[in-house]
């Protein structure tokens, strides 16, 4: 609780709830490929990765969840803007952010809701940008992409990569 004299620490919520949130979001992520009919990859790879993420959020396990679920959805043929994909976009992002936050606080700690306000706003902002781009993609004509566009796109990606390296070096 913020007062004019400073921050007064209350009891907060048990930080195990963050792990519960990871589990719940992970379960929702697992359900999407299952509903699409992909069972083998989901059960063999995705479920253990989700459970490992619950146990150790600051580990490579959440990365495994993100990559595997993306590949499973991509391999299942269908409309790239179908409902399953649109549901997965916020779920995967939420899984990523929750794992990141859970990784900095021990499981027997306490979480104060005031600490989660800024990440929640960032989450909403990022999702708004992504869904705007998804809406833009829905408006674009389907068909063969000109080579020039492909080259520009790949060059843009290379630029983003360089920008990321520069940001890290700037630290």
């Amino acid at each position, binding site marked *: 609780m913020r007062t004019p004299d400073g921050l007064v*620490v209350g*009891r907060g919520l048990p*930080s195990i709830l963050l792990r519960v949130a990871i589990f719940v979001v992970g379960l929702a992520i697992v359900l999407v490929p299952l509903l699409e009919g992909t069972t083998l990859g989901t059960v063999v790879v995705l479920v253990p990765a989700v459970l490992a993420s619950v146990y150790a959020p600051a580990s490579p396990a959440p990365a495994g969840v993100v990559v595997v679920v993306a590949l499973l*959805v991509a391999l299942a043929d269908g409309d790239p803007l179908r409902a399953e994909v649109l549901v997965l976009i916020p779920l995967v992002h939420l899984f990523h952010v929750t794992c990141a936050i859970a990784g900095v606080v021990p499981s027997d700690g306490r979480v104060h809701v005031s600490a989660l306000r800024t990440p929640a706003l960032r989450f909403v902002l990022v999702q708004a940008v992504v869904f705007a781009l998804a809406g833009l993609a829905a408006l674009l004509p389907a068909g063969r992409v000109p080579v020039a566009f492909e080259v520009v796109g790949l060059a843009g990606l290379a630029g983003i990569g360089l920008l990321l390296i520069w940001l890290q070096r700037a630290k």
Partner: protein
Amino acid sequence: MIDPADAASGAGGRRQNRVQVWFSARRAARTEGWRRTDALVRGVVCGLGLLVVGMVMHRLELVLIGLPLLIGVLLARPPAGTPTVVSRQRPDTVDAGRADAVAVTVSPGDGAAFMALRMPLPDTPGVGPVHLLPAEAGEVRTKVTWNAWGHGIYLRPDYLFASADALYVWGPVVGIVQQHTVLPPIEPLPPGPLPPRAAGLVGAHRSARPGDGMELRDIRPFQSGDRLRRVDWRVSLRAAAAGGGTLVPSTLHVRERHAEADADLVLALDTRLDVGREVMGWSERPTGASVRQGGSLDLGVRAASTLAATFLRHGDRVGLVDLGHPRGGVPVGSGRRQLERIRHQLVHAARRVAGSGDAVLHTTQAPPGATIVLLSPFLDDKLVEVTTRLARRGRLVVAVDLLPAELAPDPSTPWGPAVLAILRAEHHVRIAALEEHGVLVVRWDGGPRIAAVLRSARRRQRVGR
């Protein structure tokens, strides 16, 4: 002239040095200052990787799933500065039951979004859990009530700072430990009158001897050596009238008063044992505290603190004897500082529970005429011998039995109830032996009873005289 071979080796050495410097800088970057987390690696690798694969394979799903991760990393500003957490110094001692704020001053640096800070929970003593809080500059505090007495750590502000989405972290850093002593509580207790001891002929208690006090002792004929200001003129004139009306030396009467004296109270605490309700745990040391909460030593320390405070407040002289450590006592004294001395010594004595050894209480540790209050669970015969020896020498001894009333047998063995029955029988025999030797035995159940016991002891002593 420079040898080309030396120049070549010099250039090679410089290159090697630069490589070493680069590697050591990379190693330092992984362990010091702001460090990248798995979340950042995940955001960059998964986000960028899915984008690239999605574009190459023309799969929009991959691009859309990877995009939020990448945007999150791009929005994150790399933090800078050195976060610090400084704890506010507090007094070294605090009274049990008192509430106060424990505070630290946080300076999160530039770009920190969260902090994981170890702080006590409200109204719960101890260093507490790690709290996930927003990283804001200023004071962070918790209100804590210290109900358990003893010496301990009340704050260790371990901290870790994290940037937005926990992509970079600083720490964890182990905080500086803050310790203090919580002095035993003082419960309200009506004081019982102690037998006076005419040491200085001054004090708060009426002595049996005549003196210069306020209370009337007798009116008697004038004797050689009596002061004139003590002559009771009303009685003297009445005696003169009865004897013919002439005031002669034989008709003079003086008022005799009681002397006022100090009363000494010696509190003898048995610090060798700390037993609780569960017999099974008697041989184990309590975890997380120096004494068992509600155990015999906890009760004994609270009782000793209360008795000392009550009698010192009424001007008596109080001392402390540590039965487990003969040198650990406090000689009798009076005043507020004596109370602080006794309470500190009680905390110190309770940290040294030996669990064995003989009780030591020499006559030199208690001044002649002092009332001795023995606080013990009376689980050994040696202490009973010491106590009865004091009583036989004419000392007024009050035994406060600290053995928990409801004992639970050890459930891990079928002999638990039998062991408990033997313990109870032996304890009963010891208490009976004490009472046979004139020792007053009382259980500590709040306090008023001990005042009544001291009052009755005083009456018995008067009758004895």
